[in-house]
């Protein structure tokens, strides 16, 4: 799950504020509430029987379609969340104080944790039917997509150029009209970029969401994820191969039909167009643009929107200044609500944890977290040593970069769970050390963020600056030290922190892997959470997830964020 880095420039910069703490308590409380609730309901809930998944490849188109539909449903949900939550956070200074740190904490919670604690709740929404499992799966995918989109949108809303806002005000556009006419269009290009990142991230968790095992309850939904899970269970390499092929086709299709047109279309909304940049193109969009039927449809839409716009956008009454001061009363109400929520969160946490709580369990989780942390750092370092030089080399050769860039993005979108069986088979066959050899799976899907950020950084290096190096005869290690590495550094930090966040999340899936009856496991916090989920031990799930969130938050605050600001300040070419 890629955290959104740009949002930091408006989120709190340095030391954690008390609102960060409040947000943390609230999320833990929510988590405890869901987990405690689940513990109560799990027993009476009937096991949902769904159609067994067939490994026959002829079912694959159907499975692929169903999974894609789930992804799109989750994407739609994420958009609704983005438009409401982020707008609220940006528009209300009061709400923003707590909503932004809350988003930051939510972003750090392992996604599989969300899936396991909400599973029972969603199942209870439609008792005895597959629908409940569908809700749970879609929600799981949603939690892997929504946060960074909301961050991006919030960031855009906060950075709408003042002249444009003032212009909209002087035309007396109503807040509703201003939102749709100015703020949304301004936010569209970065939002679409984040949607693409989210979609890639989502694939990784589809496998987990479609074959949910909580305690003794397993629900499988027909889809690619369940197919892959089944293939692993049956040890069918052929089926894994078919799944990989299907995924390739699906990714190409939605890239061509959905994202490419969106990116090309979003180019219209780019506020500042640097000259010389090649505008993105899409054959689908061009074809649609030439369609008469579509033109007629659009005209109809536009007309109805105008009607709607008239209803909403007329700013009645005399012009007046927007209120500058907050009302004391509302502030008071806000604080009261916050305190009540905090108390509630504290109570829920206490209710779940108190009966069993032992500091020893926390110690275990923290210890395992340290092992996972070591893994993440070593892997990021290894990936950097490999991909930074390659990225620089590619970035300085525009023709190679044009080929490599989409390839790296494609690799990032590819759900690496598909490769897990191969690794497990190898570990079992050659009797390898699982603690060591399972680790690379964590970075398999996320290392590409390092690569394509470094490529972008090297490609963005001005030609004259490269010419200076050549003219002065700067070569070898001096060239790397003085010119190449500093030039790509800010880009590298962005890539590395995205990769790091993603790797923590992937740990839950990667530290435990199986192939048929063979289970291999590496010691770590990810394995701890995964095992707790399989056992249906909500007490442990909660401890594990909270510990992992804290690790991610603390590492972000103490390492990545300072590094990011340092890089922006010192190395960014402006």
């Amino acid at each position, binding site marked *: 799950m890629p955290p959104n880095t740009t949002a930091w420039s408006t989120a709190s910069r340095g030391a954690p504020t008390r609102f960060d703490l409040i947000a943390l308590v609230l999320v833990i409380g929510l988590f405890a509430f869901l987990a405690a609730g689940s513990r109560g309901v799990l027993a009476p809930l009937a096991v949902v029987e769904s159609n067994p998944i067939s490994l026959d490849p002829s079912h694959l188109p159907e499975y692929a379609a169903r999974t894609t539909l789930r992804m799109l449903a989750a994407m739609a949900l994420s958009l609704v969340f983005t438009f409401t939550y982020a707008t609220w956070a940006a528009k209300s200074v009061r709400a923003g104080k707590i909503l932004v740190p809350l988003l930051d904490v939510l972003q750090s919670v392992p996604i599989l944790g969300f899936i396991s604690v909400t599973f029972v709740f969603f199942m209870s929404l439609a008792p005895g039917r597959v629908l409940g499992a569908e809700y749970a799966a879609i929600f799981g995918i949603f939690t892997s997509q929504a946060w960074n989109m909301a961050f991006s949108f919030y960031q855009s809303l906060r950075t709408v150029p003042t002249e444009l806002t003032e212009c909209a005000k002087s035309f007396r556009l109503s807040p509703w009209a201003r939102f749709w006419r100015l703020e949304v269009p301004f936010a569209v290009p970065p939002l679409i970029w984040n949607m693409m990142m989210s979609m890639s991230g989502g694939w990784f968790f589809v496998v987990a969401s479609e074959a949910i095992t909580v305690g003794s309850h397993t629900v499988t939904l027909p889809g690619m994820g369940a197919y892959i899970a089944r293939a692993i269970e049956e040890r069918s390499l052929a089926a894994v191969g078919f799944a990989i092929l299907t995924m390739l086709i699906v990714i190409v299709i939605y890239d061509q039909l959905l994202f490419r047109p969106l990116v090309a279309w979003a180019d219209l909304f780019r506020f500042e167009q640097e000259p010389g940049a090649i505008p993105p193109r899409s054959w689908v969009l061009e074809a649609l643009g030439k369609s008469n039927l579509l033109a007629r449809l659009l005209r109809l839409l536009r007309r109805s929107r105008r009607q709607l716009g008239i209803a909403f956008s007329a700013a009645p009454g005399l012009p007046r200044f927007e209120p500058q001061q907050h009302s004391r009363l509302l502030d008071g109400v806000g604080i009261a609500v916050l305190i009540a929520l905090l108390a509630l969160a504290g109570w829920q946490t206490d209710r779940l944890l108190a009966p069993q709580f032992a500091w020893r369990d926390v110690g275990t989780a923290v210890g395992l977290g340290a092992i996972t942390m070591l893994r993440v750092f070593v892997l990021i370092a290894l990936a950097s040593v490999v991909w930074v030089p390659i990225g620089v080399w590619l970035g300085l050769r525009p023709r190679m970069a044009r080929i490599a860039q989409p390839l790296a993005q494609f690799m990032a979108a590819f759900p690496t769970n598909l490769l897990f069986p191969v690794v497990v088979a190898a570990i079992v066959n050659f009797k390898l050390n699982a603690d060591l050899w399972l680790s690379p799976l964590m970075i398999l899907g996320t290392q590409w963020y390092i690569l394509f950020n470094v490529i972008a950084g090297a490609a963005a290096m*001005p030609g004259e600056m490269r*010419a*200076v190096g050549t*003219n*002065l*005869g*700067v070569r070898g290690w001096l060239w790397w030290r*003085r010119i190449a590495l500093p030039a790509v550094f800010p880009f590298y930090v962005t890539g590395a922190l995205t990769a790091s966040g993603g790797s923590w999340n992937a740990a839950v899936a990667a530290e435990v892997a199986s192939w048929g009856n063979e289970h291999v496991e590496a010691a770590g916090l990810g394995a701890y959470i995964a095992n707790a989920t399989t056992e249906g031990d909500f007490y442990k799930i909660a401890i594990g997830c909270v510990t992992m969130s804290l690790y991610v938050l603390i590492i972000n605050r103490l390492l990545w964020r300072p590094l990011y600001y340092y890089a922006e300040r010192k190395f960014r070419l402006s």
Partner: protein
Amino acid sequence: MNANLKPAPSAEPLLDVAHVRKTFPRGDGNELLVLEDVSVKLAPGEIVGLLGRSGSGKSTLLRLIAGLSEPSGGEVRYLGRPVAGPAEGIAMVFQSFALFPWLTVYENVALGLEALHVARDETRSRSLAAIDLIGLDGFESAYPRELSGGMRQRVGFARALVVHPNILLMDEPFSALDVLTAENLRTDFLDLWADGKMPIKGVILVTHNIEEAVQMCDRILVFASNPGRIVTTIDVGIPRPRDRNDAAFAALVERIYVEMTAKPGRGPKAPVERTPGTGIDTVLPRVSSNLLSGLIETVAAQPFAGKADLPEIASELQLEIDDLFPVAESLQVLRFADVEGGDLRLTADGLAFAEGTSDERKKLFARHLLANVPLAAHVKRVLDERASHTAPKSRFLDELEDHMAPEAAEQTIRALVSWARYAELFAYDDEAGMFSLENPT
């Protein structure tokens, strides 16, 4: 350095560029010729200026001399030896300063010496001396972002000088600076040069500013475009320090304007450029109709009254030649004005345009566009003939690309669209890439 102290012609040239040509591969497999048969000699003690409009290949030539790219034909010799790759003793100053933002002023300057593996103590003393010389004392530990544009370019100079080059190459070093700062830096540079304080023997300056060339250079090579080539060499015999208000100075500036606006075909070589407005294969410059109206109005008004001297117009309107020439040429293409001998004279219709109302102007513009720009007439005819009265842009783009580079074709279409929109001749939908006769509702 005084102009009449020029070294004897027998002196070994620092640099000898002989019959150099340069081509770049194009997407369609053909080659784009950017420099053809260019020869330059640089003698010790000389400042040679390469003057021309953007796209005339002068920066390409500078990069060939610096060894940053390789000529496709001919040879560059430095101190008698062919240049193969970046040569020691040739340093460069860049238009965008090209400082490394993560290095301090001192570190930026010292970088060249580090690359030469100069001993640490010597690196230090030489870097500080260069910083001193160029007037950056006290700024050693500053980062480039803390400096103004002028100060940044001083760092650029110090960085080039610290390696004690024989030749200093300057690629429009003052064009990113405001007028006052640029003048201040130019004067400081010329003072250091005159006092012989800089460790350099010769300078090549690329510029598109005519007055700058006359102020600084001993010799000016005037470049023309498509392909880039030298059309004239001018010896600046004016003693230093030179005064812009001096009659000889003004006369030379005027003479260069005449050279640069001369109708093609009179040069020593056969013209490769086509006469403006002869076929649909003419590359149209991207000039907005506002600029065209603006120039017509200015020339029609007092004190010009229909005929203006280009240098005067340039200084009156604060336009560089890169801005002014395309506008003047467009007026010529549209037959609203004639340009000859450094003068711009409005035609009868040009004067009528200046007098007209907005509506009359559009009608007049439409008539001239159809009559004088064959591509406009061509598009209009196609749209008229088709039942749907629409045609895709790609259709015309393909036709143009038979005659010109893809970028030039794209630019030509954009220029046409802009003019046709002003003239209300036909409409264009950028999203669909379609030309049509009617304006969208």
